[in-house]
């Protein structure tokens, strides 16, 4: 009731605001937000609109300098397309103008006149013309092949640096490298063999064909699963968001109660250098104590700190919220405080049950000189539809991908209902 009343009061205000803005900025300037801001809750001065309903499981997305939106679907749609190309038609809305690629997957990234897209085993690239259109939709170059896919943590996210290198996440096909995955009481495999081919970030050349493990470099290890990653231009460095381990209580009920299990471990942002080890599966990060803890599978008891040369996170977030996208904002549409800071799409938790679930929002972590500076905050909320839907985990939408438009708009993809959102700053 209170919500309805609030909405009733807000709608006319938003309408008047956006209409007057539209009048002022006849040609350039952001499009008008939807009257209800696409159902999102945003900081003052921001608005949102639904760009398109793809109806697919829209994982990551990327936008060319010409404004074409490419969306990677987790599985091909009814027409057999797994990469959708959306073109803006009017007032910021877009329609599906084409599609190609018959492989499911998550990663997509445009840079340097090429579009990179991943299946769960491979990375392909397509040539983009001066209009930002793919010229070889049925004959992509296969850049990377033979990456491990054992279903668990299968997605291969991709990003490029400024030196022609491609970074690919290969998630660990395990929760905590137990002898028996997720089995109550099962201990960790000595010298976790998964790390040879997974549980890290691999670096390849962006222009060389048919590379596999032997051609690439294990750039960083000890990362259980990374779905969100981005290159920070200020620090000239790769940053990644790790999905922390699950089920401390289920596996070690004598050491962790259900509340502790819901709050541990933190979801961590890491700034990576070549050769770094983030510690999975031997440790997890306790965000409240701000300590690296020894994993119970490897001798931990909930109190012992980890031993080993493991890097500290650059920032830590609440447990189990599933950070599926990371984007450093380099646009000028948003106010100064957002410049070079990190947006993180939290897909939403499941492993907090029986405690209420959390997430289903886009967070913002301020940065200064290429390092986190100050506390993170929730930026775009209510993808789920209501607080009850957050708590139960039955969200209407789950934010999964982030991209920046040429004008500095922030785009968000949703792999639950397939909605593509665009967040704009409307205050002058």
């Amino acid at each position: 009731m209170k919500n309805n009343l609030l909405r009733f009061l807000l709608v006319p205000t938003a309408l008047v605001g956006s209409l007057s803005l539209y009048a002022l900025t006849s040609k350039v300037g952001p499009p008008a937000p939807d009257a209800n801001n696409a159902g999102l809750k945003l900081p003052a001065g921001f608005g949102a609109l639904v760009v398109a309903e793809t109806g697919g499981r829209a994982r990551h997305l990327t936008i060319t300098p010409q404004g074409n939106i490419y969306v990677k679907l987790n599985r091909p749609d009814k027409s057999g397309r797994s990469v959708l190309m959306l073109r803006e038609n009017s007032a910021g809305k877009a329609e599906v103008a084409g599609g190609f690629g018959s492989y499911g997957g998550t990663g997509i990234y445009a840079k340097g006149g090429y579009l990179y897209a991943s299946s769960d085993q491979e990375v392909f690239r397509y040539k983009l013309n001066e209009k930002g259109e793919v010229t070889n939709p049925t004959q992509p170059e296969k850049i990377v092949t033979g990456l491990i896919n054992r279903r668990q943590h299968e997605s291969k996210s991709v990003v490029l640096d400024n030196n022609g290198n491609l970074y690919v996440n290969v998630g660990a096909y395990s929760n905590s490298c137990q002898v028996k995955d997720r089995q109550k009481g099962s201990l960790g495999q000595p010298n976790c063999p998964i790390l040879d081919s997974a549980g890290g970030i691999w670096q390849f050349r962006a222009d060389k064909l048919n590379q596999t493990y032997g051609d690439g470099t294990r750039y960083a290890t000890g990362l259980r699963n990374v779905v969100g990653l981005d290159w920070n231009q200020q620090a000239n460095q790769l940053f990644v968001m790790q999905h922390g381990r699950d089920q401390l209580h289920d596996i070690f009920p004598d050491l962790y109660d259900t509340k502790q299990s819901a709050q541990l471990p933190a979801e961590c942002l890491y700034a990576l250098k070549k050769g770094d080890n983030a510690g999975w599966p031997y440790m997890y990060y306790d965000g409240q104590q701000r300590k690296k803890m020894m994993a119970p599978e490897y001798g931990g008891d909930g109190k012992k700190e980890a031993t080993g040369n493991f890097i500290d996170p650059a920032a830590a977030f609440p447990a189990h919220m599933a950070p599926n996208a990371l984007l450093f904002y380099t646009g000028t549409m948003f106010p100064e405080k957002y410049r070079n800071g990190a947006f993180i799409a939290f897909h939403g938790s499941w492993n907090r049950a029986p405690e209420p679930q959390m997430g289903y929002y886009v967070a913002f972590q301020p940065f200064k000189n290429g390092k986190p500076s100050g506390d993170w905050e929730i930026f775009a909320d209510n993808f789920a539809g209501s607080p009850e839907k957050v708590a139960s985990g039955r969200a209407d939408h789950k934010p999964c991908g982030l991209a920046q438009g040429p004008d500095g708009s922030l785009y968000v993809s949703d792999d639950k209902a397939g909605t593509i959102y665009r967040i704009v700053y409307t205050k002058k």
Partner: protein
Amino acid sequence: MKKLLVALAGLMIGSLSAEAQKKPAPKPKTTAAAPAALIAQGKAVYTETCLSCHQADGGGVDGMNPPLIKTSYVLGDKTRLVKVVLNGLQDVDIDGEEYNNAMPSYDFLTDQQIAAVLTYVRSSFGNKATPISAAEVEAIRAANKK
């Protein structure tokens, strides 16, 4: 007590199959398939053992942990269902959907606990299927070991 529960569950199976023969007649309120005590025990096992993945509403998690609602895995062949609990399950599509998480073995649960939790699952979340008895679990477990 244990024996009594098993006997009761057995009775319920008998009465349900008799009812099943009558086909679509609207079901009376007393359809509740199993004795309350068995359901209560099953709910307790579910909460401790299953809920963190399959969730309080039995709806599972998209793409990760399959739902327990209206699926042949839950409503259909009891032997297959009991074996999922005994052996775990992974790399299997459920009703055309991929679920990528791994379910470990829960063979450390007793026959009675497995019977109770599966009876609870088969009669909750909108499901209406017959109970499973500890004796049935015992027989399936014995065959499973061979």
